[in-house]
């Protein structure tokens, strides 16, 4: 029993964080916002050069052979950076499902960056990043199928960097995997990104509170501002281990992994919503402008919270489990 990250995990995360800080800061978000495709080939290439699309692929498939825990740690960093490139859907959600279904060639192609898989599930009224994807992993009637990505009508997202498309009729080859497997993995990674977004928004609120002067002092010296920020810090502190615990449950095929994912999604998305509202409030009228960077993360948080099972969906799953047969109580911490 040891809840710490390993040295290797820490090094990996710091490397990715440093890279994202360098190439994917607010200026990049603003530049992408001015780009019709909202995507950057250089950023996609940079992720490939770090080997991240192959993080979960076996070494024989040209991957790094790492686990869902490392993938979730990277997704947290992606959420902090507001990463727009759809690598997480393709490489962290679809790839392990395809690998388990024996789609070896496609796995290798995802790992090398040649293939990108978009995800469709009836729980969402959209498909993210269908344009630019080579394949579509689609859930219908409880089962999954994989096929080449068709085209579809573009939809507008409140998030200026998300590219959404209308659902399509699934037309691929059925694979031996359940629709729930897709939903659960996608929900886990939405939670991880939301946690990162919450962290980024709190950091922006704190930075603004340290610089903005009113009444002759930084507004962060006022308790009202301090207490707002501290409340978000508590929410983030207690969402993070839930997200990690869910990642561990998925990696180890625990029987209640889906419940831990629902818990993670609720905790992280509630923290992210609250962080957005608090950060806006701390910024005052500036927070209500397009000029302040905050809105990129806030809108992403809304998207992550609604997709892959909304609050009602995940609360229902938790309630059914704890009032049903799942062991709960003091001696069931890791049940």
């Amino acid at each position, binding site marked *: 029993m*040891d809840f710490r*990250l390993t040295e290797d995990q820490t090094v990996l995360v710091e490397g990715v964080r440093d890279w994202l800080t360098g190439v994917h800061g607010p200026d990049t978000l603003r530049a992408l916002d001015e780009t019709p495709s909202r995507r950057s080939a250089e950023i996609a290439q940079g992720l490939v050069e770090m080997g991240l699309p192959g993080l979960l692929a076996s070494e024989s498939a040209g991957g790094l052979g790492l686990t869902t825990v490392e993938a979730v740690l990277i997704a947290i960093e992606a959420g902090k950076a507001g990463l727009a490139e759809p690598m997480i859907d393709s490489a962290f959600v679809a790839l392990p499902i395809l690998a388990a279904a024996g789609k070896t060639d496609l796995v290798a192609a995802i790992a090398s960056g040649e293939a990108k898989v978009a995800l469709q599930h009836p729980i969402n009224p959209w498909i993210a990043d269908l344009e630019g994807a080579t394949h579509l992993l689609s859930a219908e009637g409880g089962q999954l199928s994989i096929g080449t990505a068709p085209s579809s009508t573009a939809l507008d997202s409140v998030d200026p960097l998300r590219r959404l498309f209308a659902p399509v009729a699934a037309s691929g080859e059925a694979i031996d995997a359940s629709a729930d497997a897709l939903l659960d993995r996608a929900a886990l990674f939405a939670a991880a990104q939301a946690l990162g977004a919450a962290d980024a928004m709190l950091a922006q609120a704190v930075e603004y509170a340290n610089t903005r002067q009113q009444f002759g002092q*930084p507004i962060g010296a006022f308790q009202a501002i301090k207490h707002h920020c501290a409340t978000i*810090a508590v929410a983030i502190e*207690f969402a993070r281990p839930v997200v990690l*615990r869910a990642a*561990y449950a998925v990696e180890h095929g625990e029987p209640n992994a889906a419940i831990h994912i629902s818990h993670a999604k609720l905790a992280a998305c509630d923290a992210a919503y609250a962080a957005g509202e608090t950060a806006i409030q701390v910024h005052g009228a500036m927070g209500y402008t397009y000029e302040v960077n905050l809105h990129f993360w806030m809108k992403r948080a809304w998207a992550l919270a609604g997709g892959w099972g909304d609050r009602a969906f995940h609360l229902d799953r938790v309630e059914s489990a704890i*009032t049903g047969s799942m062991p709960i109580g*003091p001696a069931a911490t890791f049940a």
Partner: protein
Amino acid sequence: MDLAYTPEQQAFRAEVRAWMEANAPKEPLVTLEREEGYNQHVAWERTLASGNWGMVTWPEAYGGRGLDLIQWLIFEEEYFRAGGPNRANQNGIFLLGPTIMEFGTDEQKARFLTPMAKGEIIWAQAWSEPGAGSDMAAITSKAERDGDYYVLTGQKTWSSRAAFADWGFGLFRTEAGSKRHKGLSFLLFDLNSPGITRRPIRQLHGDTGFAELFFDEVRVPVANRLAGEGDGWGIAMATAGFERGLMLRSPARFQATAQKLVDLFKEKGANAPPSAREAVSAAWMGAQAYAYNTYSVASKIIAGGHIGAEASLNKIFWSELDRSMHRAAMQILGAAAELRVLADDSINAWLEGYIFSLSGPIYAGSNEIQRNIIAERLLGLPR
């Protein structure tokens, strides 16, 4: 990350479970805030000590078992799983004990820790004064040196357990004219010393768990001072860290409450409002999150890390969780919630628990003070 228990940890869990099943009180004890209940709880402390379970993390030389914090968490889980009572000596074992372990002399450790682990001496804390609550550095109670003694004069208040306990600890101004954090010393004193008057304070629930303490030239040996004269503030802050941080409120306590709330909801929740329904799920989630976080902190401490201002995050989380869990129970009970059905603990425990949960965001440093600490020391906002 390795979230599996080792075979040794599993064997330890089985050992605690067997002992608790054989020895834990079969019926709930009377509240610790009443003399009858206090005496029952002290008797339980001694039963625990007879199994050598007084404080498992302490060295064997001081009545412990020399176990690590993961084992302590396992112990607590099994303790609360078996419905173990609140610890009468929590001010001692969870707050003063770790402080003596860190700052005490060998003589003080031998003298105070073993009787503490054995439940022979029950401790009260004495921090607050009428003019020094959240602003604890405003303490005015003084201790004047007279040879090998200090002479204590002044008043303490909200002194938990002091209505019935044996000994107390707190901060006193040992340097005349000193201001704020300077000139304070950390003293341990026998509550039955001549010159101490205890005035029990009737609390929200009507019982008298805490008390005011009046000191009228109370003579306390210099040997009862922890660390150096004038070093009291730093030591008190360390104690407060233990209090807010890891030990005072183990996750198992809240997991047990969450489990009871789920049971209550299953039994009586058919007409609960949607907010209470959500609060039931939030209770399980919150208690689990607190447990994961505590395992995470324990893992870091075992590896040589320490807990500092992060303790304030914990304190806010568990105290607000406890209050919301009990409020949900009150809402599920509806009109029955107001009834003081002392004979039916399944109802009365929620009312008593809700009342007690209202003190959580206040004691051990109010949550407003904790939010200041988080903002200033963890987030880097200006003081």
